[in-house]
């Protein structure tokens, strides 16, 4: 039965219980469900060629075996078998293959199989997100069959395309513009048409990457002030909506500010996904008059968690993945000793205010087991003894080895080294850090060039930036989209004095980390350079 049909015959309480009832689970019951579903998954996985290739003859009969015999995995462990898209090697038959780019990987893309049962869970959990996005309290949601959604996400075969499929299958919510039309449009065309249709019909939901929704929202003002489209816009708008627009315009004029989406639309639900959402949430709330609700999804893990009406932390869904958490101390030990077998915590073992790297085992016939998807979460609250609630988490960022800008690109040491190599620039040392300017993320590259090039070639910050940008565009498709879609220039260069990195090593006994060194390390690097200048000055 579709959600839309259930909505007609069931009470709100029954619908809420079905989709969002997991929020009332006790931690023990949640873990019971997790372990039971993991048992099923282990049974399917160990019989598959994929599972056997990782188990390498070891047994998988119990949870102890699961922790002892399955190592923590990365996409490299699955790539050979998955990239051929052969269902026969999988624990269950794949209905869909979802893909994403694989920055710094051995292949341009990563693919993840979605089984029928995974899709059912995905569908169920997507509807839960929809209800929660429109709710103010428990059992309270506002979904109607006349609702419309402005959709700022990529279509299939990307994971975000699944959301539109679910909405189409389960609800009568209309996409602005309709998904079929949107697929053949460019990003800006889609937004323009979406807004145009939204002006005529109202927009009830908005869903996209935090950064994208922000830039789409800003685009509204420029669209409505553009003269060329005004007449065509007005033609298709019914009178009551026209009245609303005029009313909004007058109000803005009176308040001497530009038009904001909240003046025209009353959103019922606002959902954002991806990274860096925290940087955009306040602005989005100011623009739309409603604070976005964050959901947590990915190509490999599927839809794993959501915030609620309280917008104060994420709850994991019990039937999407089996969750393990790798403490930072264990990560550090792994770095120092690649053969070290780390200890993970389960959901009922995490500590409040601790940050962890998440390790996922996709349930319901999924391919990935004990998979390091590369995301860091912090536990923001853990239920007290006998309290019937679940732990809440906050998405922090990608793992420190990856620099993710606005959810678009994932830059690694390998990709930067490749860019430097391709550019032919005489950069001998570098370190990269994700930094913020005006609450917006960018990649800050601290570089040092070879002493000989300083005399032979024109080396300036701008020359380096231009060169590197070109090759970042070349190497990384998503990096290109940052500029194209969001219109932001994510690269900043600081040219360090020759010998600064060497001085750092001399002073602190080790090289500075190449990717995301701590802010203190950067400060030390810069202050070393400064002292170097001063020393030279004295000499």
């Amino acid at each position, binding site marked *: *039965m579709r959600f839309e049909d*259930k*909505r*007609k015959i069931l009470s*709100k309480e*029954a619908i809420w*219980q*079905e989709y969002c*009832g*997991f929020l009332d*689970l006790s931690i023990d019951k949640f873990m*019971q*469900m997790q372990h*039971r*579903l993991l*048992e*099923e998954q282990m049974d399917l996985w160990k019989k598959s060629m994929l599972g056997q290739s990782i188990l390498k003859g070891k047994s998988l009969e119990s949870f102890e075996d699961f922790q002892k015999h399955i190592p923590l995995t990365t996409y490299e462990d699955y790539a050979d078998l998955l990239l051929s898209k052969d269902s026969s090697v999988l624990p269950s038959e794949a209905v869909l293959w979802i893909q994403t780019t694989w920055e710094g990987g051995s292949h341009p893309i990563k693919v993840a199989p979605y089984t029928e*049962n995974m899709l059912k*869970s995905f569908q*169920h959990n997507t509807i839960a997100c929809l209800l929660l996005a429109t709710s103010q309290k428990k059992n309270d949601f*506002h*979904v*109607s*069959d*006349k*609702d419309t959604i402005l959709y700022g996400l990529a279509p299939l075969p990307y994971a975000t395309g699944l959301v539109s499929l679910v909405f189409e299958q389960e609800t009568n919510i209309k996409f602005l513009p309709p998904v079929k039309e949107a697929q053949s449009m460019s990003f800006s065309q889609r937004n323009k048409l979406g807004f145009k249709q939204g002006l005529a019909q109202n927009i009830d939901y908005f869903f996209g990457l935090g950064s994208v929704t922000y830039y789409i929202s800003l685009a509204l003002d420029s669209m409505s002030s553009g003269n060329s489209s005004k007449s065509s816009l007005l033609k298709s708008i019914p009178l009551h909506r026209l009245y609303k627009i005029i009313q909004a315009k007058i109000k803005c004029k009176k308040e001497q500010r530009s038009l904001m989406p909240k003046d025209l639309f009353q959103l019922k639900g606002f959902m954002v996904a991806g990274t860096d959402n925290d940087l955009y949430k306040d602005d989005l709330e100011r623009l739309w008059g409603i604070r976005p609700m964050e959901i947590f999804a990915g190509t490999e893990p599927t839809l794993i968690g959501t915030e609620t009406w309280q917008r104060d932390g994420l709850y994991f869904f*019990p*039937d999407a993945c089996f969750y393990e958490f790798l403490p930072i101390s264990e990560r550090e030990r792994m770095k120092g000793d690649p053969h070290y077998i780390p200890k993970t915590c389960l959901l009922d073992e995490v500590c409040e205010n601790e940050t962890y790297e998440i390790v996922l085992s996709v349930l*319901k*016939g999924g391919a990935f087991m004990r998979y390091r998807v590369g995301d860091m979460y912090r536990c923001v609250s853990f239920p007290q003894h006998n309290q019937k609630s679940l732990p809440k988490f906050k998405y922090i960022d990608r793992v420190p080895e990856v620099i993710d800008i606005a959810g678009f690109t994932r830059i690694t040491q390998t990709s930067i080294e490749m860019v430097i190599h391709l550019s032919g620039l005489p950069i001998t040392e570098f370190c990269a850090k994700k930094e913020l300017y005006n609450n917006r993320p960018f990649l800050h590259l601290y570089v040092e060039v070879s002493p000989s090039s300083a005399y032979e070639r024109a080396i300036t910050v701008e020359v380096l930036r231009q060169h590197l940008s070109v090759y970042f565009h070349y190497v990384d498709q998503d990096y290109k989209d940052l500029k194209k879609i969001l219109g932001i220039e994510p690269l900043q260069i600081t040219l360090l004095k020759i010998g600064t990195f060497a001085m750092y090593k001399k002073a602190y006994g080790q090289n500075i980390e190449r990717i995301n060194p701590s802010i203190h390390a950067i400060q030390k690097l810069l202050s070393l350079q400064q002292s170097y200048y001063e020393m030279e000055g004295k000499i």
Partner: protein
Amino acid sequence: MSYASFSIFALVCYFYLFLALLASQKNRLIFSFLILLVDMILWTGGSFAMRMCFGPSTSFWFDISLIGLIFMPYVFYNFISEFIGKKDEKMRRLWLYISIALNVINYTTHIFLEAPEMIMVHNDVVFIYHFTWWIYIVIGICIICALQIAYNVYCCVRNGDRMFYQFTPILAGISILLLGHGLIMLDIFKGIPLDILSGIINAFLVFYALYKKHLFNLKLLVSKRNCYAISAILTILLFSNYLVPLRNFIARHFSYYFDPMIIVFIIFMFVFVCIHTLLKRFIDQIFIKEEKQQADYLKNFSDRVRNTLSVYEIAQDICEIITETLGVHRVYVCMQEGTHQDYHIIYSNATLERQNFSFQVDNPMVEELMEKKDCLLYNDFKRSLNYRSMWENEKQLLEHLQIECIVPLIEDELIGMVLLTKKIKNHYTYEDMKFLSSVASISTIALKNSRLYEIVYQEAISDEMTGLLNRKYFYKQFEELFVHKGKDSTLTLILVSLDDVRLYNQLYGTKEGDKAIIQAAQIMKKTMPDTAVISRLSGKEFAILLSECSLQTARDMAENVRYQLANVNSDKDDFALKAMTGSFGIASIPLLASNPKQLEEYANQALYQAKRRGKNQVVIYNEETKSSMQMQKDSKDKENIYSEYAEMIYALTATIDTKDHYTFTHSKNVAYYACELAYAIGLKEDVVEIIREAALLHDIGKIGVREDILNKQGKLTDEEYEIMKGHVENSIGIIRYLPSLDYVIPVVISHHERWDGKGYPRGIAKDDIPIGGRILCVADSFDAMTSKRSYKESFTLEYAIKELKSQAGKQFDPQLAEVFVRLLESGQIKLQVEQREKNQSND
């Protein structure tokens, strides 16, 4: 029909609904509807009483009627707000205050509507209303209220909180109400009480809307109370119209005999009883018939299950009552074998479909049933949280079986469940669920008792270890079968005796021995026909009783069992177990024996013959067997079977002496020490004799060890040590060819085992090592320490005692070591080296 009749009918309807709802479970919504009904009663009742000119005055009833009318916007607003779940207390209070204010103003000033003027027209009272423009204030307020209600409904539908169709009956009701009040103003409808009619229709439509929301059961409408009320009202209506003509008629024709009023009263009562009876029958026919039928079925079912102690029969009855009463396609009854065990299907009416499934005890459906403790519709379960942790194969099973409803058989815990597929007609209703709950509660207790009875009964008739029939029940069955089948029918008895079970136990421990016996029982059960009566008569003896089975067939089946038995351990690769073989004796009635006693005797003789012939064979009783038995009886009884083999043992030990004199002396010493120790711990004579013989033979395997290893000076290499260790198996290898001496094997094979389990060849520990082996271990080690060897000098007695003490609980049985040390210290055991030296010096 007069105006009064309409009003009465309307009032009857309102009261009827009011009474029906009073009996239901009340919530805020029901209360708001009750208020609405009260308001309608005030309005219609007041109007009716006014038109009938009831006391105290028409103006009084007019005021009552107007109170109802003016409160109507508020009561509707209140009801609709409850219906859509809008929590707008402030607005409701505002409308209440406005209504109260309007009423107070009008009551004190009659400014909005004055009491109507009464005019007599052709003996009829006509009420003429004089409207002023003030009335439009009231109308305006009503319209505003109606608009606000409409807006609230619109918002509710727009937000998706409620579907528009849910409001259809209510909106239709309000529209009809407004239409009725509007049309009455038109001349064409003058005299027709459309306002009252529209009020009735509205009330019923609202009632319908509430019913659709499942707020109450429709059967409330047909309660006894309502039945009486309707009968009374109908009778009164009838008599209000015909009372006068009837009284006149009676006065005209019968007044001479009776007072007309008495006759009228009797007729009145008679009519009332008739109407009530007819009405009740009619209602029973429509509503109660099914319920009554179900109650009858339930009663019969309850009687049936109470009178049986068979789980199967109860399950059959459950299927029957459910299929017959509800018209369910297929029913599956599942039960738990024991606490914390899975739920297995025990009966189903779907004989042609899969019947071998079970549900794990941790199946989320079980948890859901435990939580709900009530019937569960599969569609509801699919929407539950527990369903989310179901495995795909568990879901597929339920889907495959097309289960629609699950009935828990639950008391303190879930002992079983009944799975139902879809009904032939319609879906499962609330009434069906109630009925199923009743069936479940009756069945649960009956099933629990029956299961307990079956367990106790099974325990009483069967052997605990193998599950076969026990000796007592077997003989009962034997007698019954003989009597029942008659003397002319064939009864064949196979007696089975497993060979060398004692040796098997001593070799591998009683645990392995028990396992072998259980396996043998399973083989017999599997191989013999279902009609065979199989029993374990004693430790290693079994009996199989076959009816209408030829000797030839019985022998073939026995051969089959014998073959399987002999091969049980052949595929075990962890360690080689001796084959468990069996000997079989067969006899039959009427071919060989004429009564059960004889049958058993002959089968026993055949079995004995099988044993005598070398075991592991099947023998059918015949005359030869009989004569052989006779001969056996005549042979001399052995007083001590062991002494028979003494010569053989000395011959063997002499063989060792020729090769290795030390081993010969050592064996004799060990025999001495071991026997002394065995006597000291109170073992019987025959056991001590076995230990003595085992001690003499324990190192016989050294015959097979090279002399250069046996007499090597210095430490043995690992390879040489392995060869030396092999002497234990060698010993067994030699002794096993002497069947008459096989009883010493368990002792010999275990003399190098250690108390802590680190010995060889089997690595067994503690009590698993036969007592003889433990004794031999102490004796053997002690003699090894105190003897002089080619590679070592003899240790002192003190050193040996110290070593025995320190190894107690490690190499040696701590109790035996302690006793042995005590015997040495007290001088009860003499050091054999000293003894030998003494003897030599004497010589």
